[in-house]
Every structure is written in structure tokens, then in C-alpha cells.
């Protein structure tokens, strides 16, 4: 029995090899299907109108995604301003300065950060940058009711707004910190949030000239909500940091030690050796890492849902909400309008072309990179 199981072993061998190749086919099948449908459903809708017009009001046919495309580029640019310096410099530290235990922990934390769900990033930046920037009310005191306690204020439009004051309210009235020191007619800036069926004051400031100036510069005197392009760019930039950190470190490790030693032997300062010799040698790899992080971040939707929020019009200030391609695709896809579905396909095709362009660009950059095995 055990002597002639050759046939069994041979058959198993062939069977398993076929199975393995079948696995490979099944793995690329979804990709092919998605590409096929993207092109067949979306290609016909990509025209000059689509690329240059704003979306039409809900339910109307036509319009385009110009603001979403521009928004994605804007967000990517701004996010790079945050992600690239921090990530590259951090990667330089990991690679060039050896502190065994510290570096191990930094790497571990960076890898864990890479695994944090993108929606969680969005929630965090929401709490940090969106909520505090919400709706300051600037107005004059009309009446004060210490019993409830409620503060009634006449805002710039003349409407009376009521604000509940609780234990968490911070008072900053240039020395006076009491509700009873408020007189009708005092100019205030009130930062508040909506809660249940009312508004609760978070922070009450006197409306001094410099505060008003700062608000004007930040564009917040007109802001309707706390959602902003800045918040969206921040969350994307933060997500890029651990990605770029790891890729930069790996690329710098590939620079031969001989370069470093030669530079030091010639008397160059240590930091110059790193900044001007090592980093310059690895520049192509660093750029690759940055591009890959950009491609990854360009397609992110979840973190933008409550930071950038989306916008039906052009964004004029960074403190206003901004449209982005993935957001627009998502909103259109779950809508009940057929025309919006059609535009979602077109937008998706534009997005995948953008992401693929970056990825293929990376591939050509690294083409002369050798690998030891030809697999």
C-alpha cells in the first residue's frame, strides 16, 4: 500500500497546483470586474462639463464634480505640508540615530497607528478641530438670569439667543469672572455647542478688538459650521505621518554605510552628513514613500465625513467645508437619484485614474531598483 502511492502523490501535486493557480485567478477577478464596470459605467460621463462644472441642485440632471476634484487636490497638498516634514524627519531619526529600545517602540507605535481605522482618525480630529471652531456668537448682553442660569444675548442680526451656563463654562472677561458682573449692553463672544433642546455656552470672552481681529483673520466670524478644509487636511496629514515615517526609515537603511563613513572621514558635521549625503542619496525612495502615502490618502472617505464634510460650491476659505472626490462619490452613490449614480461612477473613474497614476508613477521611479530574487 505505501510502496506505490506515487500516483496519489502525483495527482495531489497536480491538483494542488491547479488549486493554487485558481486562487490567483479569483484574487484578481474583483479587480478586473471593478475596472470593467468603472470604465463601462463611468467613461461616457467624463466630459468637459463634468470636469469643470459645479454640482447641480438636488434632483436636477447634469452638473459636474469640479469642486470635488479641486478639493481632493487641495486636501492632498495641505495634508502633505503636515505629513511630509514630520514623517520624513521622524524617519531620519529612526534610521540614523540608534537607540535600540526607543526606536523599537517608535516603530511599533507607528505600525499600530497605521492600523487605526480611518474613521477613528476622523472622530479625533472632529473633537480637536471641528468642535472648538463651531459657531462663536458675537453679541451684546440683553439679560442675565442667575436662577436657571441663562444668558440672553442679542446677536449681530438682532435675534435674541439664549445660552445655558453650566459648571463647565469658562469665563474670560478680562478679570471679571462672574455671571453677575455682566451688565446689559456688554459685548461678548460666546463659543457654544448645541445640546438637547438648547445651546450651552462653552467659553465666554469679552469682545476685545484683537479677539475680533483674530476671528476675522481665521474667517470664523462668518463660519456656519466647524467643518473645514483645514480639519480635513489635518486628519489626512496625520494619517500620512506613520506611513511616511516607516517608508523613509526603510529607504534610508538601504543607503550603504560606506557613504556615511566616507563623509564623516572627510570631516563633515554629523548632521550635514545625514541631511546632505544620506537623504540626498535616498531621495528617490523618500519621494516614492510620499507618493504612496498620497495615493492612499487621496481615496480616504471616512475621515472626511465629519471634518471636511463636503461642499456643493467652491471653497473660498480654508475654514469652510470643502468637497472631495471620495466624499462626493459616497454621497451620490447612496442617493436615490439615477443621474447622481451615473456621476458617482464617473467620479470613481476619475479617482481611480488619479490613484493609479500615482502608483504607476511610483513603479516607474523604482524601476531600476534591483531585487535579489526574481519573484
Amino acid at each position, binding site marked *: 500500500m505505501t510502496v506505490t502511492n506515487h500516483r496519489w502523490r502525483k495527482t495531489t501535486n497536480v491538483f494542488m497546483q491547479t488549486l493554487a493557480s485558481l486562487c490567483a485567478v479569483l484574487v484578481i477577478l474583483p479587480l478586473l470586474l471593478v475596472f470593467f464596470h468603472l470604465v463601462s459605467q463611468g467613461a461616457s460621463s467624463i466630459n468637459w462639463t463634468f470636469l469643470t462644472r459645479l454640482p447641480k441642485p438636488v434632483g436636477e440632471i447634469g452638473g459636474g464634480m469640479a469642486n470635488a476634484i479641486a478639493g481632493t487636490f487641495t486636501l492632498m497638498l495641505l495634508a502633505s505640508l503636515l505629513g511630509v516634514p514630520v514623517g520624513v524627519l521622524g524617519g531620519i531619526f529612526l534610521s540614523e*540615530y540608534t537607540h535600540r529600545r526607543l526606536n523599537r517602540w517608535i516603530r511599533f507605535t507607528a505600525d499600530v497607528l497605521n492600523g487605526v481605522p480611518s474613521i477613528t482618525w476622523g*472622530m479625533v480630529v472632529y473633537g480637536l478641530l471641528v468642535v472648538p471652531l463651531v459657531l462663536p456668537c458675537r453679541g451684546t448682553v440683553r439679560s442675565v438670569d442667575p436662577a436657571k442660569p441663562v444668558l440672553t444675548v442679542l446677536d449681530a442680526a438682532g435675534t435674541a439667543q439664549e445660552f445655558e451656563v453650566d459648571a463647565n463654562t469658562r469665563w474670560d472677561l478680562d478679570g471679571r469672572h462672574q455671571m453677575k458682573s455682566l451688565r446689559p449692553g456688554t459685548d461678548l463672544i460666546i463659543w457654544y455647542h448645541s445640546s438637547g433642546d438648547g445651546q450651552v455656552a462653552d467659553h465666554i470672552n469679552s469682545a476685545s478688538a484683537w479677539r475680533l481681529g483674530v476671528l476675522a483673520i481665521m474667517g470664523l466670524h462668518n463660519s456656519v459650521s466647524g467643518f473645514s478644509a483645514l480639519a480635513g487636511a489635518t486628519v489626512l496629514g496625520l494619517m500620512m*505621518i506613520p506611513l511616511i515615517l516607516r517608508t523613509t526609515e526603510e529607504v534610508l537603511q538601504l543607503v550603504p554605510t560606506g557613504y556615511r563613513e566616507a563623509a564623516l572621514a572627510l570631516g563633515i558635521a554629523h548632521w550635514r552628513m545625514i541631511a546632505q549625503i544620506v537623504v540626498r542619496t535616498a531621495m528617490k525612495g523618500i519621494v516614492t514613500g510620499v507618493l504612496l502615502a498620497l495615493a492612499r490618502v487621496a481615496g480616504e472617505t471616512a475621515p472626511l465625513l465629519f471634518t471636511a464634510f463636503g461642499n456643493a460650491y467652491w471653497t473660498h476659505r480654508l475654514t469652510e467645508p470643502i468637497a472631495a472626490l471620495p466624499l462626493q462619490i459616497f454621497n451620490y452613490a447612496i442617493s436615490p437619484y439615477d443621474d447622481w449614480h451615473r456621476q458617482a461612477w464617473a467620479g470613481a473613474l476619475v479617482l481611480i485614474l488619479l490613484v493609479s497614476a500615482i502608483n504607476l508613477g511610483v513603479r516607474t521611479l523604482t524601476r531600476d531598483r534591483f531585487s535579489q530574487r526574481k519573484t
Partner: protein
Amino acid sequence: MVNPLMAKADLGRFGDRAFKGLTLAMALSVFVLIVVIGAELARGSGVAIRQFGWRFLISSDWDPVNEKFGALPFIFGTLVSSAIGLLLAVPLSIGTAVYLTELAPLWIRQPLTIFIELLAAVPSVIFGLWGIFVMVPWLSQNLFPLLQKTLGFLPLFQGPILGPSVLAGGIIVAIMVLPIITSVSREILRSVPDLQREAAYALGATRWEVTRIAVLSYARKGLFGAVILGLGRALGETMAVTMVIGNSPQIAKSLFAPGYTLASVVANEFSEATTDTYLSALFAIGLVLLGVTVLVNGLAQLLLKTFAGPGLKPQN
């Protein structure tokens, strides 16, 4: 007159310290980030935790109107969709990784690898779009009725077929985690020393036997790490799942029933949360999600670090 060399060394020393300080500060940002993430989520979920306590995790009430919040349906949905996703993806991924490293002809390997990298690069929302308009209708007309006909005796496959379902969610999760499990497995298999394979060949093993005996058993721990990494990715998958899972906070026996995951509920309801308690409950869900993914990813990193890398020790 200062010795010019000494002057340069002084400048160098300050520059050295400054540069090192700068890069160190940037590198330490990762610690700051993880702490900020945890702290912010904890702060946001304070109200909900104080109000519901541990019951939050075991209650299946999700009633924004009456302000009763329980996370169980979402935990269930996340677990089921991730489990289905892994069940489908792991055999395919490891099979593909084996194919790529051991069995494929050399000319196929590079293009196939590029394909898989492209699969990884496709944004989640595009898979969701394809899922809503192509995959789910096709499934509800073809695969689901077939499953109900053949396996309908199991409560898993009974019940009305609407299309959006936990099963659809699981399938799309599988598609999303395929590339990462495949690439990491491929790296693991490549790092198995050739000596192992050659020894098996020398003893007369067939190609499959070499793979099974010399490669797969050796790489077991690393492959497990790859699977856990995929699990981490599956748990946090948001957009594609939201678009095909039906978004209904219920716990049902049927795989054809719509479900809801931790990430999906946050994505859908965050901007519409009207009260503090509602928002805080969503933050608490985010905290649960963060805790679970950090644990799973940490475990995966440990497993992979103790296995992979050139020049590794041959014993366990």
C-alpha cells in the same frame, strides 16, 4: 585666534544637537498621536460611559429617540462580517501567495504582483460603489437564491433575501483584505530559507509536498501573523461595508439579513447626532473599535516581528 577645525567642530556640535533634537521631536510625534487619539475618544465617550457603563457592550437597544444606546448589534455585525471575510479571504490569499512564491512560472510573478498591489490601492468607496450597483444585485439574483436552495436547511441561509446583508458585507470585506494578507504572506514565504526547500526536494518530495512540508509548516507563525493583520484591517473597514451591509441594527440568525458594523454606524450617524448622549455613544463605539483594532494589530505585529526578517534564528 580660534583653531578653524575647532570652530567647525563647535558649529557641528550645535548643528548635530539641533538636528537630532528636531528629528527626535518629529519621531516622538507617534507617541503623541496615539495618546491624543485615545484621550480624545475617551473624553468624547465620557457621558455615555457614565450613563451606561458596561451595559453598553451587552445591550442591543439602539434607540436614538429615547436615548438608549447599546453596542451589541454593531459588535455582532463587525464580528460576523470580519469572520466571513477572513473565512473567504485567508485560503485564497495564502493559496495565491503560495502560487506566487513556489508554483507560478517566473514570467507571471511580476504582473500578478502588480495586479495585487493595484487591488490594494483601490479606495474603499469605489469598492462600495461597485458593491451597491453590481455585486449586491448579482448576489441577490444568483448566489443567494442558490445558497438558500442548497443550504436552506441551516438557519444561516433562511429568511428573506433583500440584497444588502451581512453576507454581502463579509464578501466585500474579503475582497478588501485579500491584498494585504497576500502581500504579507508572500513576504513571509519568501523569507523561508531555500535550504528547507532544497532539503525536501533532495528527499524526493513533489512540488506540493515541498510547499506543504518545508515551507508552510515553517512559516506557520508568520502566516498566522498575516491573517491577524488582515483581521485588523477587516475590523476597521468602513466605507465599502457601509454601502452593502444594509445598516440595520439587528442581530439575526440569517446571513441574508441586513446588519450594522461599529465603523458603519459611526460613519452614518455621526453628523446627525443631535444630543450629547447620542454623540457620546458614537464616541464610545469609536473607542471600542479603537481598542479592538489596536489589540489585534499589536498582536499581529508581535507575531510578525518574532518570525520575519533576514538572518532570523532557525528555531521557534
